[in-house]
């Protein structure tokens, strides 16, 4: 499927609002198995993105994705900054090259993040949300319940990448913070195309 420019903007802005309303929650989750900054870092990035979209008001699809990607890349920082940055830069590049099918964008973004993080499903990262969610989306089977399910499933995983991997067994019992913040992105998408 394809998004209109307005839908694309609405999608991202809805996501930034979700993040804003859940800063403390995301920090808390990152405190349990990371360094407690994911909410703060991501909110800084998404708020900057919202502002950029409003101020620059991009009028073409490639420009929308470019604005989102470059802003996220330069404002989040940390592991999640690189990962979201990679995801949106990949999508922006594809859109610029004429690829507008959202399902392709999401699947390619997931692939790029796997490559960036030298990671795959089952390692308790955002991949455990993106991989199943992007595939379900491509198959028109994505639901809010499924999304939340994917996040929940990270709870019983042992982290193998990122800061939390050093906790080994102790990383079990908490959901992955960036899987959680990614779930907002997919939920926002569902709401926009609804």
């Amino acid at each position, binding site marked *: 499927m394809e998004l209109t420019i307005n839908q694309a903007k609405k999608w991202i802005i809805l996501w930034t609002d979700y993040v804003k309303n859940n800063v403390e929650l995301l920090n808390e989750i990152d405190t349990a198995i990371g360094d407690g900054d994911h909410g703060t870092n991501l909110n800084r990035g998404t708020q900057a993105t919202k502002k950029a979209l409003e101020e620059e008001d991009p009028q073409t699809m490639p420009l929308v994705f470019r604005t989102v990607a470059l802003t996220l890349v*330069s404002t*989040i920082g940390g592991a999640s*900054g*690189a990962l979201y*940055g990679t995801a949106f830069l990949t999508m922006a590049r594809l859109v610029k090259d004429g690829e507008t099918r959202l399902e392709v964008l999401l699947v390619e973004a997931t692939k790029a993040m796997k490559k960036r993080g030298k990671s795959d499903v089952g390692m308790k990262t955002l991949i455990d949300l993106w991989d199943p969610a992007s595939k379900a989306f491509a198959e028109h089977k994505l639901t809010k319940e499924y999304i939340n399910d994917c996040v929940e499933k990270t709870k019983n995983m042992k982290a*193998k990448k990122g*800061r939390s*991997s*050093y906790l080994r067994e102790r990383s079990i019992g908490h959901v992955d913070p960036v899987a959680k913040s990614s779930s907002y992105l997919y939920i926002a998408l569902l709401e926009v195309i609804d």
Partner: protein
Amino acid sequence: MKKIINNIDDIVSEMVHGIVSSYPQKLKILPGTLAIARNDAAFSDDKKVGVVSGGGSGHEPLHSGYVGKGMLCAAVCGQINTSPTPDQIYEAIKYADKGQGVLLIVKNYAGDDMNFDMAKELAEFDDIKVESILVDDDISAADDAEDTQGKRGVAGTVLVEKICGAAAEQGMELHELAQLGQRVINNTKTVAVALSAATVPAVGHPGFELDDDQMEYGVGIHNERGFSTEKIAPSKQIAEELINKILKSYDHNTGDYAVLVNGLGSTPLMEQFVFANDVLNLLKEKGIKVSFTKVGNKVTAIDMHGISLTLMKLENNWIEYLEAPTDAISW
């Protein structure tokens, strides 16, 4: 939490400005970033491979204190314990490139690895040759490293920066330099102990609590707890345990070594030199030859009270690189 700061959000920016305005002949900020770069006259005429590093702040003098002729061309400062963003790293790469390419020295953390990787892609898109090496000298959790993000990059980083910086200064070309750096990393092993954890300003209290008679073996430089909590021991015993752990991690213990005794932030030099004395005596007893020693706060964990020991097995002319002059303010 007692700290000499203003607003918590401004610490890194104010610190970076403090560094460059204290040493304006040597250092400057790259516009629009928190990257500190060489500002000396010699740099403008250079036609050498650029060496760039960076990472989260809180490890001062790493990396900014090692910017200068003979070491780094630029150091990109992230927020505290947070990797810098690719756009800033990219600016540093552009500044450091003199047509001979740029070597990135990256500590092995997911955030640093991925953000430097993105910056490398951006630079390559501009036809700048970039190679990167990942420092992972912390052997305190080496056993199951494949099951984790891998070994962490800690104090040994400064030795990698010194050797690569000196070799670049002497004209080594990019690919050879990256290979040299990787060999140095392979030969460098560190373990740390803490008597008390650091207080990250935004958190406001120590990252973990130790009793008055406890110490933690195997801590990282981001308040990561270590592999065991023990009764605090005399310096000599700590030295013995760290040395044994490190020596065991080499295939064999022949040859010359460099030694780095590193304070983790709030450890007085007095304690560092008492510890260095024990380390050097024990190595001598074990028949290990030490050709180079460095002692001081070189790679810190904010205000952690503790110490790390790094050994590096020397090859070829590495000792000359270690002893080569540098303008960096903190080497």
